[in-house]
């Protein structure tokens, strides 16, 4: 048994909302219902529940996964919450696969539901922040990415218009995505990007994700079981790697390098693919520059050549390297435990993306970024390669 013996057999997703008008448990119920309807399986067949740990609503409840199982009436042999921040969604896929391989469950329900705008219980106080960054007014992720961007700029130079090009491409994709947050479904130009309000110079408003509410989910089972059940259009995970606290045992590191370089090599190696084979790219996007850093880390281009890579490529859904075709989090809204780029990749590989459908559905590369460390880049990196059955 291995990762690729498992299948994502269905996905579900709510529209992203600026602020939810219903409780997070209602959103979870909507996702469960949609997945049961889509697959024709009975609720009693679900014997695994895997939740993303990146939840503001559930953050203060140490029993969040059990509470969710109880609310939804699920009786499971595997109940898990995955705590790798923005890597959680991809991390849920591989942990569900491992649990299925090991025999802990047969049918896993992966739920990414969060209403962190409506109700946020996030507490960073037991971390370095309270002593080492809060006293200096460094504003969380935008402040950290301000430091990271400036360090990159000092090392390699940075043409912000090229970051603007990425922002515009993703925004155009959100215009084609009816599930994207309505507030963000407004066209923008590169000038709009450059002239947007400075948050933590050089980070501008249009560099940043906007927190939003919503939910998504997946059903996973072994390929064998999926076949027995006659489930078609399955999506197979064929390569995965994650890295937390990359170079955590060193004091001074090159902040322009992240754990993605090692994750990419490992995940692509397991998949038997080279980066040039990637048909569509769905990188974690909390800030626009994170996308450029991932072009470099995954080997689409060399270190320091991110700007010229952006200049030379078309990242539209019908371009030569389709990128975050649902708008990414930056233009769809940071909702549903940051699972939207994963859900969009699954949708694309099933050829169900409508007006923004990519032509090449041979594979998709989905990534994660999780947590912000002290003066570096980020705490967790992940890479997941998906292919259609």
């Amino acid at each position, binding site marked *: 048994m291995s990762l690729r013996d498992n299948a994502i057999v269905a996905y579900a997703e709510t529209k992203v909302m600026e602020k939810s008008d219903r409780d997070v448990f209602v959103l979870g119920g909507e996702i469960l219902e949609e997945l049961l309807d889509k697959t024709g399986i009975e609720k009693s067949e679900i014997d695994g529940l895997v939740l993303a740990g990146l939840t503001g609503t559930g953050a203060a409840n140490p029993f969040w996964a059990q509470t969710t199982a109880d609310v939804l009436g699920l009786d499971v042999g595997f109940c898990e919450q995955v705590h790798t921040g923005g890597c959680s969604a991809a991390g849920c896929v591989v942990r569900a696969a491992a649990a299925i391989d090991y025999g802990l469950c047969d049918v896993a329900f992966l739920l990414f539901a969060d209403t962190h705008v409506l109700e946020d219980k996030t507490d960073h*106080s037991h971390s*370095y922040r*309270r*002593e*080492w*960054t*809060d*006293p*200096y*007014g*460094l*504003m*969380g992720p935008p*402040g950290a990415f*301000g*430091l*990271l*961007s*400036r*360090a990159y700029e*000092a090392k390699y130079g940075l043409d912000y218009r090229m970051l603007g090009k990425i922002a515009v491409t993703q925004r155009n994709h959100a215009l084609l995505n009816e599930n994207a947050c309505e507030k963000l479904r407004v066209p923008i130009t590169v000038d709009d990007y450059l002239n947007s*309000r*400075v*948050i*933590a*110079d*050089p*980070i501008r408003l249009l560099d940043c994700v906007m927190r939003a509410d919503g939910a998504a989910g997946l059903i996973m089972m072994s390929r064998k079981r999926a076949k027995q059940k006659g489930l078609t259009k399955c999506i197979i995970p064929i390569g995965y790697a994650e890295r937390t606290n990359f170079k*955590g*045992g*060193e*004091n*001074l590191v090159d*902040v322009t390098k992240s754990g993605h370089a090692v994750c990419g090599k490992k995940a692509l190696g397991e998949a038997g693919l080279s980066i040039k084979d990637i048909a569509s790219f769905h990188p974690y996007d909390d800030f626009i520059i994170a996308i450029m850093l991932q072009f470099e880390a995954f080997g689409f281009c060399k270190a320091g050549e991110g700007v010229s890579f952006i200049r030379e490529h078309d990242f539209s859904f019908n371009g030569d390297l389709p990128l975050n075709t649902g708008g990414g989090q930056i233009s769809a809204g940071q909702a549903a435990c940051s699972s939207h780029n994963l859900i969009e990749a699954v949708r694309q590989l099933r050829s169900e993306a409508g007006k923004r459908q990519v032509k090449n559905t041979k594979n998709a590369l989905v990534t994660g970024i999780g947590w912000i460390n*002290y*003066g570096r880049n980020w705490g967790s990196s992940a890479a997941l390669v998906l292919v259609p059955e």
Partner: protein
Amino acid sequence: MANPNKSLNDTLGVKRAIRHFDFSEPYWEGTKQKKLLIQYCKKTGKYQHFPRPVSIFTGRRRDIEWREVSGKGVVFSYTIAGRGTPAFRGIEPYAVVSVTLDVGVNFIANIVNCPAADLKVGMKVRPYWHPVGDGTHLLMFQPDRDAA
């Protein structure tokens, strides 16, 4: 981009109540005498910041000692807050710098006595100690204009 001709505000007027981890206490004790103590790993000969309960190089508590360092360094990176955190609202723009100390660790802090146009990556800086009110001082940096 921030207007380079515009002056940066310092953050000296911000009220701060800093909760310390017990394993950082020697650092804060040192600041009472405006001494900068940084954790040093005896086994590897390397410094680490922020303070940890163990050496990040060896994983052992017993390898750690505190050493006084000069606090001199160069600006590794900086960001200028256009919108501050709640306690800092109303004093924007102000700068947060990451300084590489001469002992090889990065230290995030504010900078004082530094116009926006002067703030550059690679600029030499030295410590500026700001009293917090509880006897400890908060380390900030200022341009080291005498540095060779």
